[in-house]
Each structure stands twice: as structure tokens, then as C-alpha cells.
């Protein structure tokens, strides 16, 4: 059978299925920083400066929206882009660093 190219289950990203719901633990705070002209993620005694892509993903993580909905929403906001791979990679990196969890 033909495999649909747009929905490969990447074995590298086992944490995040399309129906998983990512969330940002409450100790992290996402905000726009005028002085840096970028979004940042703040946490106890530290900060991560975010790229525009990272900020667009994080802004949509509210603890309710699933990965599938997140990707769909991003693809509506940025038509023509295939963002699924980027989003999964980002979520996985965030999960490894502790600033993204999966709602259970």
C-alpha cells in the first residue's frame, strides 16, 4: 500500500503523537521583550531567547490544544509550509530540556 508521505510516524519523536497535548510547566513564562525584539521563555534565574518559529509554536501551547491541532493552526497561519516535522522536532527538544511536558 502507498504510504502517505505527510504522515510518517517518526520513530525519533515517540513522545508526541498527533493527539498528545503538550503543555508548558507553570514555572516557565513566555513573553515579548521589547529590548530584545524577540519572545523569551523565562524560568527561575534564567532565560531562553526564542526564534520567531519557536515563539509561534509556544504561543499556541495552552495545555488543551493537541499536536495535530497545533500543526493545523500553524499551517493556516503560514500557508504553504509543511511544519509538522519542525514542530515535532521542536517539541522533542523542549521536552528533553524540561520546558515542554505532555499532558497525561
Amino acid at each position, binding site marked *: 500500500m502507498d504510504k502517505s508521505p505527510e504522515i510518517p510516524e517518526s520513530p525519533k519523536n515517540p513522545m508526541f503523537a498527533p493527539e498528545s497535548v503538550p503543555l508548558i510547566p507553570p*514555572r516557565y513564562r513566555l513573553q515579548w521583550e521589547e*529590548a*530584545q525584539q524577540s519572545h*523569551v521563555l*523565562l524560568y*527561575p*534565574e*534564567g*532565560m531562553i*531567547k526564542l526564534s520567531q518559529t519557536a515563539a509561534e509554536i509556544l504561543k499556541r501551547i495552552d495545555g488543551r490544544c493537541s499536536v495535530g491541532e497545533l500543526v493545523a493552526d500553524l499551517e493556516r497561519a503560514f500557508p504553504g509550509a509543511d511544519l509538522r516535522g519542525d514542530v515535532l522536532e521542536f517539541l522533542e527538544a523542549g521536552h528533553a530540556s524540561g520546558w515542554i511536558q505532555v499532558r497525561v
Partner: protein
Amino acid sequence: MPADGFKSASKPLWLLAELTYRCPLHCVYCSNPVDYTRHRSELSTDSWMRVFREARALGAVQLGLSGGEPLLRPDLEELVTEAHRLKFYSNLITSGVGLDEERLTRLKAAGLDHVQLSFQDSTRELNDFLNHTRTFDLKLRVALALKRHGYPVVLNVVLHRYNLDHIDTILEMAERLEVEYLELANTQYYGWAFLNRTHLIPARDQLVRAEAATQRFRERVGNRIKVYWVVSDYYEERPKPCMNGWGSVFIAVTADGLALPCHQARSLPGLVFPNVQDYPLEWIWNESPAFNRFRGFDWMREPCVSCPERFKDYGGCRCQAHLLSGDAAAADPVCSLSPHHGRVLEALRSKETSDTARALLFRTDENSRKYAKDSNGER
């Protein structure tokens, strides 16, 4: 903290507000100046709020509320409220003394983001000996209350010869208290710690064992507890990138209003640090001679000025250079390339004869008055 966020900026990202030098504890490695008894005046609530606003306008986003013991300021809740309004990420750096249910509730309502709680050790005996108070049980109660109130917690333990061998129980304590972060900060030798240096310097094998235990712990707990290990720089071959460079990302304001590029800088002779009551922070950061004195690389001499590693370590720590070589513009003597590196090796050797050295000095008003002059240039 990740370097990528803090490195490229030429703005202060961190404001450390040392709200008071008063403290109920008497820790032998206190980072307040040895002569703190000479600096009793404290900024008013309004002055602090102005400093917060000016720092925020410059780009500062992390706020450390420290001391002494910041809970001794009855206006702490007001200050947190203003910090929260300004969208600072606020960090209360405390001994826990005075953090009762009522204040925990009020501070939470005011918008306090996080609490860093210090323990001096994982045993009651040593904790209470090193800070010369009976506070171990209180600190345990505070740690549990913090979790009940939903605060993220950094547990901070300063490490040295007397507690490095307790590393396993320190790690267990962090796990039992369910903190999110554990900061294991090997003693840095300034101020009170410098006076007590021969007592506090550990043996190399103590450090090696403790660091290995910490690494095993990290591998076991993963993301549940993030563990920071601050190295004992006397045992290193290269200096720490102190403050990510002078006047690069960090600004400290002392209880009495001096603006400093590092909270130890007050000890440096020949520099006039501006007071926030006399100058706007914007001028202090950008224009003041003190903040420009060691900024960038132009002030450097050999061996730093031609060293390829200067972009990584910024020549190390100016305060340490002053303390160990008498010259704040010299290479940090921790560096094996420094002509003064022998002073560090000498200090490491001298720990073995500490039985004959003077008694351990606790941070007390009496000792402050008595030993202020001995602390190599503390003003």
C-alpha cells in the same frame, strides 16, 4: 542559565537587588562585604521601585531579591507587586527565616515567581553550626510550605570542605523536598569566605567524589530536578567567565544604593561606584567610568590580551585578580597562564595547615567591625 540568551546582549538582563545587609544568619562564607556594618543605610521603597523601572526600561528581565535576608524588608510585598507589574521574572533569594504562611500567601498574591531557599547542609548539626542559628527544622518546614503554595523552588547549598562529603544526603534531601532545581555552589573566595579560606578549601578528592555523585544523580532523576554545579575555581586551570564579562549582562544594586557590575565589586579599590540615588541607571550602565572600566577587551594586558580564550572567559574575575595579585587589571590568578597562579596553589597547600590558623569567623556585627580592615581592600 543558557549562554545563548545572555551572551550577545549589551543590555543588563539581570538586576540583583540586595535589599538589605541585615540577616538573622551568620554564615561563614557570607557574600556581603565584611565591613557591612559601615553601610547601614537602606534605599527607600520608592527608590527601589524607580530602580526596578529604570532597569526594566534598559532591558533587565530577571530580578533577584536578595540581601542579607530580604524578608526583613516589610515592603517586600510592595516591591514584588511592582516587579510583577513591570513583567520582571522575580526570584526571592532567602534563608527562609520569616517566610511564614501569611507572607507566602501575600507574596504569591503579589506575583512572586520563584523562591531560592538556602540550606547550609543536609544535617541539622552542620547547618546550624555554619550559620550559627537553629534554623534547620524551620528551613525544612519552609521548603514543604513552598511546595504547598505552588512555588517553583531552587534549593541552594554552598559547598566546602565541611559538607562536600555529605553530598549523598544533600542530593537525597533535594529529591525528598521535590524541588525543581538544586544549585550546588562550591564556595567562591571573597569577603567572609576569603577570611575563612583555609578552613573552607576542600581536598581535591572530595570535589571529585562529590561531582561524580552529582553526575550519577543527574542521570537518575533526569528532568525532574535540574542540578547546577558551580565549580571550585581554585582547582581549575582556567578562570570562570565572571558575570559573562564586566558590564555585560548583570547589574547589582546594594542595600545602600551602589550600582555594581558584580556583587563583589565593592571591594575593588580605585573605582567610584555610582549611587542610584544620584544617577539614573541608564547613565550608570552606559556611561559611568566604573561600568566601563573593564568592559570589553581593551583594558587587558598579557597574558590575556593576546589569548584566544579571552572571548570565552573575559580574563576571569576582576575581584579575584585584585584579592590574589593586588591588581584588578591582572589576569585572574586561577588561570595557569597567570604570573600569579602560584598564589592559588599556595592557598590550596595552606589548607593543610589550617589547624594553626585563626578560628572560623562567623558573619557577625562584632567580627565585621573587627576584621573589616583584614579583608584586602574591602571598603
